């Protein structure tokens, strides 16, 4: 191996050796190549009705237009498809007039028939989509009056009707009039949309080709999405210009990115927060005081340091503690409820004793038997906060609780945890991302069929909290809605069906050659028309 000449490359570069040198050499060949970026996983489907992961939502935003959407710049409700929208039928219908000249990627015109087809597809029980199922309680039908005008009927009067119409538009012609849309349709791989890009999914990536339209004029001709799980490889390839962007950079790798002049770290607001769900139906955890004690036992500051890597007192930390089920920047967040950063063992011990637990040989016993906590964690969290599961276990063990730890796969999470069937666990570490609407009712409301509490992890039930959520539902003004959720925040912070941990920033990294890259919350690519590459 050659000795590095002093002052040229740092000696450390020497060891990276051939790998990086070759990477950089080949990057020179990439001029004129499409804009490429990495995700941790590829979208499972490009069919909007079957989106289940964030990768799905993001990729679909490039291919489809949603009828209405929030601007990423000023959060205003907007539409690229609708020229004019008005309430009709005393607020029970909404009449939309489409802009002229809109085309599908197949070249045919977007008409009011497509709007009504999308509504009918979602209402068809043969469409086995949970997203469609959600709309079945909102939408009642649709009439295409003229090729440009469609009237969409609601099941009841809503105070924010446009927010109920944020679905992606589907092309009627592609389905030949069949409104039952199934997940394993070819549409999932090779969809036809009206969005800025024509999408094509393969086994190793998705390609997007710009499609000039009356309502879209993307300046980037081609994009390519690939999957790399190892964040290390992602960052290194970005540095060598092998790709131009990474959707999510885990905290440990961020210093490496910000140190580079060629790269920019950009915030991607996912409005997601981390929690430890507590099984309020099991053993000692039935006691509210025990839950409060656990909340005091956790040292969030240490957890954050040892997993995410945030040092105590660090400025601009990517990880912000929360005391309730909202992120701090949300208007729903109740700032009156303080966060607990450090543990308070003495207070916890006092609470546990009050709850009737006794400490024998250093271990806590409930009704004569030692308390063993079975802790599960959504497996994918390991990427962003490596080792979190073990660290939580460590803290509980140090406080006198025996524990078992296991990771829960994404499928098991969807199948068992979200549906409230994971009763074998005492604690479940998870992450919640708000969708288009910042609502938490599904998480905390008493479960009844599919209508309420559909994502209530341990089937938590509290009539007081239920009442506050009904209050939120019935609110007609923003202030009333904020007020209801502020009260809910406080109630939950006391009853603790979840121990609320933190909001962990998601950061993207892009090369500086990529400009004008406004990243929309949640859907990411909403403003892609304004992105430039070169």
């Amino acid at each position, binding site marked *: 191996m050659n000795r590095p000449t002093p002052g040229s490359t740092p000696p450390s570069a020497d060891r990276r050796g051939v790998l990086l040198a070759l990477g950089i050499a080949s990057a020179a060949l990439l001029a004129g190549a499409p804009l490429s970026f990495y995700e941790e996983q590829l979208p499972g489907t490009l069919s909007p009705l079957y989106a289940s992961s964030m990768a799905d939502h993001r990729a679909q935003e490039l291919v489809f237009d949603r009828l209405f959407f929030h601007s990423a710049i000023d959060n205003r409700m907007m539409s690229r498809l609708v020229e004019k929208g008005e309430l009709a039928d005393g607020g029970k219908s909404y009449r939309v007039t489409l802009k002229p000249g809109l085309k599908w990627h197949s070249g045919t015109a977007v008409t009011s028939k497509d709007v009504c087809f999308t509504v009918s597809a979602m209402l068809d029980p043969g469409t086995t989509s949970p997203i469609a199922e959600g709309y079945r309680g909102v939408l009642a039908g649709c009439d295409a009056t003229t090729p440009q005008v469609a009237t969409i009927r609601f099941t009841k009067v809503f105070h924010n009707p446009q927010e109920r119409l944020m679905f992606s538009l589907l092309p009627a012609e592609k389905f030949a009039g069949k409104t039952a849309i199934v997940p394993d349709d070819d549409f999932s791989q090779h969809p036809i949309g009206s969005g800025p890009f024509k999408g094509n999914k393969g086994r190793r990536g998705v390609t997007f080709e710009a499609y000039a339209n009356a309502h879209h004029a993307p300046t980037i001709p081609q994009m390519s999405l690939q999957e790399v799980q190892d964040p290390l490889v992602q960052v290194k390839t970005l540095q060598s210009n092998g790709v131009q962007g990474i959707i999510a950079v885990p905290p440990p790798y961020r210093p490496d990115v910000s140190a580079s002049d060629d790269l920019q770290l950009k915030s991607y607001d996912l409005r997601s927060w981390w929690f430890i769900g507590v099984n309020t139906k099991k053993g000692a955890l039935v006691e509210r005081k025990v839950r409060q004690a656990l909340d005091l036992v956790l040292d969030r500051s240490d957890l954050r340091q040892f997993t995410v890597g945030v040092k105590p007192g660090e400025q601009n930390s990517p990880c912000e503690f929360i005391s309730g089920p909202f992120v701090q920047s949300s208007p729903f967040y109740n700032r009156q409820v303080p966060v607990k950063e450090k543990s308070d063992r003495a207070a916890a011990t006092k609470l546990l004793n009050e709850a009737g637990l006794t400490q024998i040989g250093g271990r806590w016993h409930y009704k004569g038997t030692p308390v063993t906590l079975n802790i599960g964690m959504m497996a994918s969290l390991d990427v962003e906060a490596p080792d979190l599961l073990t660290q939580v276990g460590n803290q509980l063990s140090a406080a006198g609780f025996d524990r078992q730890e296991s990771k829960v796969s994404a*499928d098991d999470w969807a199948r068992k945890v979200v549906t409230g069937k994971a009763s074998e666990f005492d604690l479940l570490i998870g992450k919640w991302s708000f969708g288009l609407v910042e609502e938490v009712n599904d998480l905390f409301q008493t479960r009844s069929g599919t209508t309420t509490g559909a994502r209530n992890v341990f089937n938590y039930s509290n009539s007081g909290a239920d009442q506050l959520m009904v209050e939120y539902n019935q609110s007609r003004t923003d202030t009333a809605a904020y007020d209801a959720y502020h009260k809910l925040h406080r109630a939950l912070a006391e009853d603790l069906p979840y121990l609320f941990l933190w909001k962990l920033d998601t950061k993207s990294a892009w090369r500086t050659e990529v400009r004008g890259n406004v990243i929309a919350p949640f859907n990411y690519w909403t403003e892609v028309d304004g992105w430039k590459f070169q």
Partner: protein
Amino acid sequence: MTAWWIRPGVRLIAAIILPLVVPAIITLLIWALPGDPAEIICPPETCGGTAELAARWNLDAGAWNFFRAWMGDAAAGEFGRSWRVEQGLPVRDLLDESIPTTLMLVLAALVPLVLGAVGSATGLIPPRADGGFHTVGLVPAVVFALLGAAYVELEYGAQSFLPGANRLRLVLGALVLGLADGAFAAAVSGVRGLFAAERDQRYVGIALLRGERPLANMLPNVAPALAGQLRARVLHLLSGTVVVEVVLRINGLGDLLWAGTLLQDFGVVLAAATAFALVSAVLLVIQALVEIAVAMWVRRAPTVRDGAAASPVVAA
């Protein structure tokens, strides 16, 4: 003495049974798993309307009906659509891409093994080299594969799935498969052991005294054992493809099987596993054919008549 045709015969029968047994076991498994099969495949979080999906995927009329329908379709080359791995893509398309890739990978990995085997059989590779091979074989395939994957990604970046990069993946995959996890060492020492044992047989030394070449004398006698070793090696390589293809992201059968298993996309698992079983069955057939061919070859004799019926002489 057992009649010579029994062993190849049993192998041929096993080759026929195998592609039936594998999908049957997997079908049973689908029903053995706790929970509704349709719900396992697509959790309610992702798909509502489980009953509709069950009917669509033939999962509503019991294991036997499902198996019958699947076998019938498979016999016609129709494997349905992927439910989770590549949602909506015909499984047939996935197989069409994966089978040639995996076969290419295994054949390429077989090249160093065969060269090593020939080298050790002919004595070109001295026994003292075995230690070195064993040391290389100590390194687990995952480690080699990982370095290869990082190398391809850094070298090609976003272009890492263009044909050039894919060829490099295949070459690296073949090297990893052929060298790591002791594959090469096992091939070399296995064949060496086989030939050494045969060389110790008296007839080989005597053949030398008759002016004949020992190798020509040994070859037909070790051929069935060699075919057995070859089959074992190929099976070992096939098993290894799962790890190597997943890590190096090669679009092969192993990768398909892993993805199908993780996502419980049984349509894909069934097809990929059956494809593996078919390859395995073909190997069995090849071994049986080699055995039959050798048995025929061994029995070649000039036709010499002395008036009596030409039946084999039984030991007196």
